[in-house]
């Protein structure tokens, strides 16, 4: 937090603030005490932004940057770190990079791309404490996470017994106890097949899960409805079933339909937009998927684009990594008690490979066919589709038709012949990029003070040198201002910042705890009293207000 009285005037930049309808207008942005204001005194420090592009700080709605799974990946790839050392500066700390950088390097590297907030998309409640501790060491950016509830045995039991209100209260209890910003489902129902039937997976979302007498689709629908009714700021964040399988389009469409008008966020939808026969070559299913999204306003999504190069499959979808693994690859599979599974595997996307090229193309197709940038957002599912460091290149691919066709010439041509990409000549505008990387994620997450530069907003601002080469432009903002404090000036770090932890607290009947406790004491390896994340773990934090709740609760300082 900037000290009281710190004032800034960002003068003469082209401002892209789509949430407030400002599209490249030359105007000043004024900052006082970490917020955007409409007036500053004559003593305000002035940044000359003439000819530069001013945007709110980026918000990553879906990435994996903290916790045990990221640590597994770090430990699994020492070679990746050794060759990418992140040196300390006078104001910042050192670390190592690679596909899964160390905590400090993660924060700084997000900042050097102009991102000032990021949300970890898969945290089992048991790992919440670890994640929050790592967040404390992930500098500059604000951060939060979605808690994994999609394979939670207690919740499934409640569903089986038809106890709807208890189910809702239990979800709210878990979100509050883990200090999450939202609810995440990953391959709902699959853990029972995976753990109970030896290496099996859900293939049909309408097939009943043995002990629970309900189908994955029914479970998903119940979560979507409950989360919406709880007024959580972010809708259920769903990793659909059958990720990565040819022909999974139908599963994805069924899942979106099961929302029945309730709000739902479909994560990394690129991985769920594959046509073709199961077990055969992937075909593009982007048209069917994006048509549905274009026509149904209750659905938001992030794309989870693929970019060629090193990545790491990192997911609570344990059967997926088991399927992807091949001879000589390192991989880890883990079980998280009654809550979740986990798989981690280093991976490389190759432009000579048909499937990888197809995945790359489908990600771009979905964006280029999308009609509402407010509901189709930018992500690579870092580090699954690609490292977050590829964002500038992907942005250029969206903004620059020439660059796109040049790249299409260099990749697997069979895939290019089979996809729609060559027919699409749309180019994203700067304003649209500002929506998909900033304004829309902030809105979808219920962050009223982020993703825009209106009066009262958090002063998270990035200033780019306007450059025809959008990759170069987005790769290195000239200035990054976080909470009203200049962090990067002329491409160099000038200050450090811890960043804030963002979570939410849905209302619920605390009596539900008495139901959870006995289950917990029967089946878990740790004491119930050690499960809930207590307030001592929350550093500078902020409670994201529930929808329609009007007044905003504030965290401590």
């Amino acid at each position, binding site marked *: 937090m900037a000290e009281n009285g710190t004032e800034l005037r960002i003068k003469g930049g082209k401002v892209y603030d789509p949430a407030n309808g400002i599209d490249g207008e030359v105007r000043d942005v004024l900052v006082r005490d970490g917020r955007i204001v409409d007036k500053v005194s004559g003593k305000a420090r002035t940044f000359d932004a003439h000819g530069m592009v001013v945007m709110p700080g980026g918000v990553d709605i879906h990435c994996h940057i903290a916790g045990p799974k990221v640590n597994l990946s770090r430990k*699994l*790839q*020492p*070679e*990746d770190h*050794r060759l990418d050392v992140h040196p300390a500066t006078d104001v910042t700390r050192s670390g190592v990079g690679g596909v899964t950088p160390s905590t400090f390097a993660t924060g700084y590297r997000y900042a050097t791309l102009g991102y000032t907030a990021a949300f970890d998309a898969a945290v089992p409640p048991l790992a919440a404490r670890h994640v929050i501790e790592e967040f404390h060491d992930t500098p500059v950016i604000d951060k939060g996470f979605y808690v994994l509830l999609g394979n939670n045995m207690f919740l499934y039991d409640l569903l089986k017994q038809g106890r709807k209100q208890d189910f809702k209260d239990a979800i709210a209890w878990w979100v509050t106890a883990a200090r999450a910003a939202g609810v995440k489902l990953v391959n709902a129902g699959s853990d029972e097949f995976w753990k109970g039937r030896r290496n099996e997976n859900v293939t049909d979302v309408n097939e009943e899960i043995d002990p629970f007498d309900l189908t994955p689709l029914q479970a998903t629908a119940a979560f979507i409805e409950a989360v919406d009714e709880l007024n959580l700021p972010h809708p259920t964040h769903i990793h659909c079933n059958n990720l990565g399988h040819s022909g999974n389009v139908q599963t994805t469409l069924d899942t979106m339909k099961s929302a029945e008008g309730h709000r739902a966020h479909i994560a990394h939808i690129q991985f769920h937009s594959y046509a073709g026969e199961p077990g055969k070559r992937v075909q593009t299913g982007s048209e069917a998927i994006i048509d549905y999204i274009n026509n149904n306003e209750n659905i938001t999504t992030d794309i989870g684009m693929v970019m060629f190069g090193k990545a790491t499959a990192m997911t609570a979808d344990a059967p997926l990594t088991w399927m992807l693994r091949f001879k*000589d690859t390192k991989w880890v599979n883990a079980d998280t008690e009654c809550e979740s599974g986990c798989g981690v595997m280093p991976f490389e996307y190759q432009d000579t490979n048909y499937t990888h090229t197809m995945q790359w193309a489908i990600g771009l197709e979905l964006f280029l066919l999308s009609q509402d940038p407010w509901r189709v957002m930018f992500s690579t599912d870092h580090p699954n589709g690609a490292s977050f460091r590829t964002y500038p290149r992907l942005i250029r691919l969206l903004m620059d038709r020439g660059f796109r066709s040049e790249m299409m010439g260099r990749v697997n041509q069979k895939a290019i012949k089979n996809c729609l990409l060559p027919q699409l000549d749309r180019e994203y505008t700067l304003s649209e990029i500002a929506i998909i990387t900033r304004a829309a994620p902030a809105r979808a997450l219920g962050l009223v003070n982020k993703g825009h530069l209106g009066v009262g907003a958090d002063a998270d601002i990035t200033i780019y040198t306007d450059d025809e080469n959008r990759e170069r432009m987005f790769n290195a903002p000239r200035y990054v201002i976080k909470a009203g404090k200049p962090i990067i000036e002329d491409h160099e770090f000038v200050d450090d910042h811890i960043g804030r932890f963002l979570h939410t607290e849905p209302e619920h009947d605390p009596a539900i705890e008495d139901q959870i406790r006995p289950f917990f004491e029967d089946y878990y390896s740790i004491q119930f009293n050690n499960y809930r994340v207590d307030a001592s773990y929350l550093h500078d934090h902020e409670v994201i207000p529930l929808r329609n709740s009007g007044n905003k609760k504030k965290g401590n300082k």
Partner: protein
Amino acid sequence: MHTELELTTAPEVPIEAECLSPAKIKGLSQSGIEHLVMMHGNRKVRVGDFFRVTGNGQSSLRLEGDLSRVKYIGAGMKEGEVRVNGSAGMHLGAGMSGGVIRVSGDASDWVGPEMSGGRIEVMGDAGHMVGSAYRGQRVGIMGGEILIHGNVKNELGSAMRRGLIAVGGQAGDFVGVNMRAGTIVVMGGMGIRAGAGMVRGSIISFEPVELLPTFTYSCWLRPTFLRFYLCHLGQSGFEIDDDHMGGRYRRYCGDSVEENRGEILVFDSR
């Protein structure tokens, strides 16, 4: 002509001296060499703080003294010669692609990691992980020769892909673990689990070996290629007797948990 550096101050903690390689000193004046930067623990120091330098930068470098705490000698060298009269520290010749390193005493762990060419000769013993892949890497050395006249410890040549490693004395456990290809010759016996996970390549032992159950006997033979290799090693200062030169070797193939295309040749009789 050569450049001579004599260690005058024994370092309390290891020094990382990637600058002690012909390419880094060639063409520098004496004081230029003295001003090269090394890391002493986490502090930057000058070569002149620890070494007495004689002569300008030549493509031949002679190091005197107990350098067992000086790491990365000859790292990344492409040509020229480094001669260590004494012992050398860890990561000797890391990433070298050409030239020669000779050590009259012992070398420590990690001799020649990521090597792709050139030659390292150690007259004494060496530590663990000689000619091995760095942790996490799928492939180790890609070429070159590592000749150790004394004994070595565990994981000799792990994941090596190409090249020759010869050991005059004993080797520890896991010789050639995860080896992809290449040749390892061990003259004084080796520990357990030799060739575990090897895909291709040859491991030659003059002494009997306790083999893993995933290696199977295939035949005996008098390998012609081995005579060439052993002649070459003989010329490099190893003592090879005629029995080994032309003798019978029992061939075991494995590792059958991998492709079963590797071999361990164990000397049998004349």
